[in-house]
């Protein structure tokens, strides 16, 4: 009964703490705060600069890029490269592939991860610790590149969407986050639903999932971003460019540019402009959604850190 009211004490405490600090701030600490603010601003500038530079290059003409005169603002503003890249059918085909791969892979991953995490969250389930054990072990020891490659090849999954969407369907990290979430799910709700005649499937589908929307959204985003960004699976398992995701389109541009640079030709600069445009177009969806999805990511990581 001695507990204080949380709703009142939290903001007050912060104010009290701040005022105490302000009173006791030494000159040295005040100097530190100015330096700190300046330093953090500098870090923001360093973080953002490459993106600004990229956009500037995307809208600049090749001559200015070649002369090394483009940094913060476009020089010789034009959008011809944009129209050129955007009229490339292969670019759009690869972009469409990225969307398809991301959607299918995320759906598969969510189906497997959610059901697995739910079953593993049931502490009474016989054999549970064994299943958790064999799952977590894959985090620390795995088959390695070649055995995986040989497996996918021998399953005949090369040059098909399955090589991209199946092999990474369960991320153990995401699984553990979901498991700890389900472990904290109020058991009374599930018991009540079971008494009302729902089977395990019904409890899961009608009670647990609808009440877990926040964590499901976080997981969807975790998976979607990682599939959207992935390129290596496609690099490894796909030989035909019409199957590539857009990251592979970009990768091939970069690779072409570096090999040209090796030979010392000056067509690099043209590639530099095209590269910048392709990168801007690839990054665009993520940067647009980023401000809205960022907090889901943060809460997801927090959720995982509560119980590792």
């Amino acid at each position, binding site marked *: 009964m001695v507990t204080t009211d949380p709703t009142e004490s939290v903001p007050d405490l912060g104010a009290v703490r701040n005022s105490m600090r302000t009173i006791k701030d030494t000159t040295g600490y005040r100097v530190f705060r100015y330096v700190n603010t300046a330093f953090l601003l500098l870090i923001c500038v360093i973080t953002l600069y490459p993106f600004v530079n990229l956009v500037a290059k995307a809208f600049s003409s090749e001559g200015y890029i070649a002369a090394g005169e483009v940094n913060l603002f476009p020089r010789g503003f034009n959008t011809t490269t944009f129209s050129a890249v955007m009229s490339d059918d292969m670019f759009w085909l690869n972009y469409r592939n990225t969307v398809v791969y991301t959607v299918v892979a995320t759906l598969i991953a969510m189906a497997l991860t959610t059901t697995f995490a739910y079953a593993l969250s049931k502490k009474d389930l016989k054999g549970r610790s064994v299943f958790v054990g064999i799952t977590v072990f894959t985090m620390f020891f795995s088959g390695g590149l*070649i055995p995986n490659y040989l497996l996918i090849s021998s399953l005949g999954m090369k040059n098909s969407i399955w090589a991209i969407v199946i092999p990474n369907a369960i991320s153990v990290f995401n699984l553990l986050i979901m498991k700890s979430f389900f472990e904290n799910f109020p058991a009374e709700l599930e018991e009540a639903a079971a008494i009302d005649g729902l089977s395990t499937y019904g409890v899961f589908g009608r009670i647990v999932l609808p009440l877990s929307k926040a964590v499901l959204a976080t997981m969807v985003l975790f998976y979607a971003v990682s599939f959207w960004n992935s390129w290596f699976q496609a690099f490894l398992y796909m030989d035909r460019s019409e199957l590539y995701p857009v990251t592979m389109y970009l*990768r091939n541009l970069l690779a072409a540019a570096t090999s040209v640079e090796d030979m010392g030709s000056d067509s690099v600069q043209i590639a530099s402009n095209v590269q910048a445009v392709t990168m801007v177009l690839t990054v665009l969806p993520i940067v647009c959604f980023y401000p809205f999805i*960022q907090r889901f990511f943060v809460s997801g990581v927090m959720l995982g850190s509560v119980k590792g």
Partner: protein
Amino acid sequence: MSTEGTLTEANSSGLDTIAPPIKTRRGRSRHSRTTWREALKKDWRLYTFLALPVLFLAIFRYVPMAGNIIAFRRFQPGGSLFGEYWVGFYYFEQFWNDPTFWRVFTNTLILGALSLVVVFPLPIILALLLNEVRTRTFKRAVQTITYLPHFMSIVIVAGIVLQLTSLDGTINQIISAVGGEPVSFMQDPSWFRTIYVSSEVWQTVGWGTILYLAALTTIDDQLYEAARIDGANRWQQTWHITLPGIRPTMIVLLILNIGSFLAVGFEKILLLYNPLLYPTADVISTYLFRVGINSGSYSYSTAIGLFEAIIGLTLVMSANAISRRVVGSSLW
């Protein structure tokens, strides 16, 4: 308001004190008594949930793990996934006597150590600095901006690095502006380590602060008040309260980092390097990629991969054991 708060508080705490013993008793008795037959009969629907994921793990995680056996066996393309006949440690001896292997091994150690030493402490420092910020909006803005690179595809990061380091890129613009000679960074092996580590810092440090910031919020304010009353200055408070407060987080992350020590950014290096940079940029994983996938020496590169994986496993287990013994906290 306040009575409501106290009531629910009292209620929940009351429930808590009653509930646990029941739970544990029930859990224990069920554990010791149920047979597999009963468990399957009662929970078969839950086991159906397990079926597909476990099948997935078996095929896509444990079959490749068993596939490592071809490191000890002759492998025929088109033949069995697990090789044709035993050759013992033939492939291990082969890479042991391969000078290229030792070059990439050294490169991996150097890059791994550099990343660990440079990249690991920076998020801690950044989190401590962010913790001193009092303007909430400014803090949020800094966080939002510094998290951004984490969401970029590795291909984009590589593209950005190539753009910045190219002859007409920003870094050379700065060098020219202060009167230096432009450097062709991507053709000079001596620069690769700096470039790699810097790009890691750019991409990972902001996001790396999240767990530390979370840990910082759990430190009890009363500790700081007590320290202030005892006359501790800001620096002493940081050293004696804040840092010990986030120590468990530091240790967990350090163990995880040590475990992935040898798995230095394989994809990033694959995207960034070219033959001119091999003397410093070529690492175990890129070497085994070229030898295995490009040249088709499957057994040979599997032997290298297995060697790397075992070192990784050993590292993470010893880091865990050491931290359990010395600091008292560990991953498992």
